[in-house]
């Protein structure tokens, strides 16, 4: 009797077709899984399954290629925008996007990020900002907040010692090559819906040749932050959102 409810007409939700059954290596509570799902949905919604190449970073999303059944290239640390530039310039009719974390995009790869955005490469860049280096075990990131404790600033980030958090998304919004720069999160159903719309807009803008996009997702790293998933979301809203204010910073797409 209990199984009667599982039938096609009762279907209200299904796993995105492009997501395979590989068990994710992400920690429970991590934002990556949700963003992966959104990317998979957007590619399928656009009908671009056969024409998409993703570029993954070095960082927690290094294995993103395991989870979405599309073609991928794994870039060296920080170089994803350059790799994506190479692919997109060679295959202009492909949907080419990068998926990067804060250390990858805003630290070691700042030059590649800024110049790809400034050239107006027709690539969307998805930027997961959790203010910490997750994969290597919770060290300070360029976006680590002042006072935030990490493995390499165990007494809290101090400007005199460590410099200030880098607001690279704001910087990107000032570049002429960008058509869409936005900051989102995936901590509530409403914010997930908005984040998906943002990803869709950026992906479409790239295929219309409107220039580059940066979609920052302010995200949690409950393992690195040493908090429960629920507490991590609370901490993010309390501490991250005031520094990294959500919303569109630039939109010239007309979409």
């Amino acid at each position, binding site marked *: 009797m209990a199984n009667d409810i599982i039938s096609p007409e009762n279907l209200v939700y299904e796993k995105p077709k492009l997501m395979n059954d590989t068990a994710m290596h992400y920690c429970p509570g991590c934002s990556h899984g949700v963003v992966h799902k959104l990317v998979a949905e957007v590619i399928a919604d656009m009908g671009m*399954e056969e024409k998409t190449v993703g570029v993954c970073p070095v960082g927690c999303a290094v294995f993103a290629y395991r989870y979405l059944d599309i073609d*991928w*290239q*794994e870039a060296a640390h920080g170089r994803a925008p350059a790799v994506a*530039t190479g692919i997109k310039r*060679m*295959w202009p009719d492909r949907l080419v996007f990068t998926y990067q974390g804060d250390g990858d995009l805003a630290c070691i790869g700042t*030059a590649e990020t800024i110049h790809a955005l400034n050239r107006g490469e027709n690539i969307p860049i998805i930027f997961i900002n959790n203010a910490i280096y997750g994969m290597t075990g919770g060290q300070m990131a360029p976006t680590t907040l002042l006072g935030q404790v990490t493995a390499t600033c165990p007494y809290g980030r101090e400007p005199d010692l460590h410099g200030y958090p880098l607001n690279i998304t704001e910087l990107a919004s000032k570049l002429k090559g960008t058509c869409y720069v936005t900051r989102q999160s995936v901590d509530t159903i409403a914010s997930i819906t908005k984040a998906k719309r943002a990803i869709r807009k950026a992906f479409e803008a790239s295929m219309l040749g409107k220039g580059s996009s940066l979609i920052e997702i302010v995200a949690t790293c409950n393992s690195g932050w040493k908090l429960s998933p629920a507490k991590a979301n609370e901490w993010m809203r309390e501490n991250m959102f005031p520094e990294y204010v959500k919303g569109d910073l630039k939109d010239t797409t007309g979409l």
Partner: protein
Amino acid sequence: MAEQEVTLMKGNEAIAHAAIRCGADGFFGYPITPQSEIIETLAALKPWETTGMVVLQAESEVASINMVYGGAGAGKRVLTTSSSPGIALMQEGISYMAGAEIPGVFVNVMRGGPGLGTIQPSQSDYFQATRGGGNGDYNVIVLAPNSVQEMADFVDLAFELAFRYRNPAMILADGVIGQMMEKVVLPPMKPRRTEEEIKKECPWASFGKTADRQPNVITSLELKPEVMEVRNLQLQEKYRQIKDNEVRFETQQCEDADYLIVSFGSAARIGEKALEQARAEGIKVGLFRPITLWPFPSRQLAQLARGKKGILVSEINAGQMVQDVRLAINGAIPVEHFGRLGGIVPDPDEIVKSLKEKVIG
């Protein structure tokens, strides 16, 4: 035939023309002396309006090599060019390309080092070129042109070898070959490959997963050591095949020679003149020129050296290729080195003098 026309140009210019003619899809580069004429010539020729080839000035050599990674990882014929300090910056990308088995092509028009060094010619990147250059156990195919004609011819050859073995291939030139002008017959125009042709030639390439196959993932990453060892062994097997099949070299007047000069690239041109001068003095000298520096023609050189009295390895560095020559000769006959450093190019007189002093004794 217009395509057989003999023209006069610099080695650097020949690289640019040859890239367009051999059906390259993209060039990504950053200016640096003594090879900036390559990107300047490409920009002036505007191939994007004719063959559709893309030419992009990147923000750094780090970016250019990673653009090559992306483009070649997507199955296209893509190249970059630079000079010594720029090539040093590219080593990360080259190692990743070797690990991910990406058939990119790059050109090093060497200048003197270390560091910022000098803009004058040098051959001091031989070790970097032939020992991999970046991290890990890998090799890139290294072709050493000694004329403007070979600069033109080796571009297509480098692409052919790179795609045949899914391995990065390098043209190792220097400031002499890059800056000198000589007669050259440019290779015939070859069309860029179509999407169908790329699909067929590069079933591994990552440019959109079609329903008939699994996703293609271009990566050098593998965290399980037992799997990574297998991958490394596969690479080593590939390198063995390249060693068996792709050794290239040239000899001059070695048959009756008592002594050999072993040189590559521009040093081999100077060595040839030294040979002429020594022969005029009655000294029987031959010249052995490795064209592939990796794989190095060890067996061929060892055979040829049998019965000779000694070898002078003349290169524009402090003694790099001489190590490969000594490994090949394995103590059978004396092997000496002559080189000039810091951007000084030796002249033929110096080589003859060194041959007399160090080898003939």
